[in-house]
């Protein structure tokens, strides 16, 4: 990726300072390894990531301006969509099939599950298309390619934040008690974002090569919706299978997040296995995913301009 001196297979591609723009010196290219206090390091990082930051900002703003253009309700759709899905699922599963009878605050519990899952689906699906959709830019400008995927991640994250406001509103409405456990929520969201964005990176690079990936991913998402306890409480299925399902990082995140925010009367990975340390497995999967996508994306990003 541009920025650092590039070394690629069988060729040398050195560029001392490819950053365009104004108002900075080429400090980072002339490294002085002797004295390197924290301040200097921070300044170097700021200069190093100046261009990606400006680009990211511009792309996210553009994306938001364009997304709901010429639509009647505009940004409200960000909130209306999960609410509409929630209403349908609530009527079908809670009222007719009585799925959530055993769970307190089931509507909030269900809506929260949908919002968390929706973040994953949106980030990965839109992420998958991101590079190919920006092919014109990739072919004509040299810029850090990760910005494209990151900009999708950022706009999905903003929608997610708006949805969380709705969740809080419902919690107040239904008098859901807030417990100290809620302090775990930022860590769980961090895991969620890491997993979703790294999947997005991986899929976007893979989609450049394999253009039928979008169909496969769509089916995967449909299947995963039912393989993750979003609609149903985990108590409904035999413990053997429940123990298997909960190893999926998304299942672990959804259940843990509900536990800390909505109600302790839900099955988390700790309860199924009797120890909190089993979390190492889904968290490990997430970390492996992050590492894999960083390596794969970096390797592939050299040829995006030719293939996207």
């Amino acid at each position, binding site marked *: 990726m*541009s920025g650092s001196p*590039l070394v*690629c297979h*069988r*060729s*040398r*591609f*050195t*560029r*001392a*300072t*490819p*950053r*365009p*723009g*104004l*108002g900075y010196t*080429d400090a980072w290219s002339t490294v002085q390894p002797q004295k390197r206090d924290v301040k200097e390091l921070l300044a170097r990082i700021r200069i190093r990531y*100046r*261009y990606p930051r*400006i*680009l990211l*900002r*511009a*792309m996210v703003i*553009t994306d938001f*301006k*364009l997304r709901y*253009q010429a639509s009647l309700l505009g940004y409200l759709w960000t909130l209306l969509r999960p609410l509409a899905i929630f209403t349908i699922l609530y009527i079908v599963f809670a009222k007719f099939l009585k799925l959530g009878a055993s769970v307190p605050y089931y509507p909030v519990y269900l809506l929260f599950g949908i919002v968390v899952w929706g973040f994953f689906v949106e980030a990965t699906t839109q992420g998958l298309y991101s590079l190919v959709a920006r092919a*014109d*830019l*990739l*072919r*004509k*400008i*040299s*810029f850090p390619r990760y910005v494209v995927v990151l900009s999708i991640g950022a706009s999905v994250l903003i929608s997610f934040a708006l949805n969380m406001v709705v969740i809080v509103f419902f919690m107040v409405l239904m008098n859901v008690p807030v417990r100290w456990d809620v302090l775990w929520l930022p860590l769980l969201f961090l895991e969620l974002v890491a997993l979703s964005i790294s999947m997005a990176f991986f899929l976007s690079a893979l989609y450049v*090569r*394999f*253009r*039928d*990936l979008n169909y*496969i991913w769509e089916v995967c998402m449909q299947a995963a919706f039912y393989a993750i306890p979003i609609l149903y409480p985990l108590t409904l299925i035999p413990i053997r299978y429940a123990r298997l399902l909960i190893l999926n990082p998304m299942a672990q995140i959804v259940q843990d997040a509900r536990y800390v925010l909505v109600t302790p009367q839900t099955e988390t990975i700790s309860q199924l296995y009797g120890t909190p340390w089993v979390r190492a497995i889904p968290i490990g999967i997430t970390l492996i995913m992050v590492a894999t996508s960083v390596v794969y994306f970096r390797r592939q990003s*050299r*040829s995006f*301009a*030719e293939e996207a």
Partner: protein
Amino acid sequence: MAEPIIRVTNLSKDFLLPHLRQTTLKGRALNLFRRSHTVEVQQALRDISFDVERGEFLGVVGRNGSGKSTLLKILAGIYMPTRGSVTVTGKLVPFIELGVGFNPELTGRENVYLNGALLGFSKSEVAAIYEDIVAFAELEDSMDQKLKNYSSGMQVRIAFSVATRAQADILLIDEVLAVGDAAFQRKCFEHFRALKKSDTTIVFVTHDMSAVRQFCDRAILIEDCEILAQGGAEDIATQYTALFNPTPSGSEPASALQSHGKRWGEGAMRYTEVAVPAVLDDTGTLTLEFEAVAEQDVDEPVYGFLIKSSSGDPVMGTNSLLKRQPTHNLRKGERVQVTWSLPNVFSDGVHLVDVAIADRHGLAIYDWWEEAATFTVVKEEKTPYPVTPDTSLVVARAGAAER
């Protein structure tokens, strides 16, 4: 001598031919079983080496598909070299085209900010130069309209206006001059002159030899993925022109029936012979001699010709109607001799001649023969303009210096 700002060493670039690539998982899976790994490699650049000095204005010329745009993209860091190396020492504008990233659904103002971001300007930096940009583009009144409502000329103006603000050591430009009207092109040229003075290094890909002659210090001619020649701009421009028009040998008149040009018309009359001197030196008169035959009875046909530069831009032309010169009525089978003479005002280089016959009103074309002949002008004085008439110059001291 200082270190070159760009150094390209033994650079090669291969592309895998897209239609042979496995772009679906199914294709990839099937191929695993067939074990047919016949990937065809297309070479785009082969063993290219050159240096660009700081402050140099380098022209890169070559035919379509010769690999010059690929070279520019590698310099810009968009493509990676397959073999060899590129070393760039300095800030480089990542743009190789105008208006990249423009979005038709956004307003002019929003696009300026977006484009500015791609150039590395933060929001406040764009805000600081926004008024200048708009003024330069002369679009003060339409910045809040969506870009899709702009004419293409307006879009180019705004794009160029943003791009001129880029501050960098190296600028890579791909065919900028191919767009925009004459007034806009003049603005581009003015900007280039200013850049040249300000010690910016420019690599400029173009087909426009007059631009090469006018701006470039040096040029590279790329043909078939390789550097065919590099050297002075004038020399390279001449060699490039020669690629298209294999130089007529000797001074024998070019034969009429070189039929590479297009030819159309109703056919009531047609040219049978075209005689144009192959080479014309500095002074003298250009004589174009044509013979035509009437295939039907025709009344007062109009005879005309058009002279074009090697890139196909018209330089001059006229016809008997414009000259209000009466012509004969012809019976079927009659032949006429048409002779034009004019001073050789043309610029150095190869020129193309179109000839035509039309009806008495100049409307129905009987015979239009594109590039019926070519001639080469050799002039001591090389200018980048379409004509180079004989000029005289007197410079005299007008008096003692004032002290």
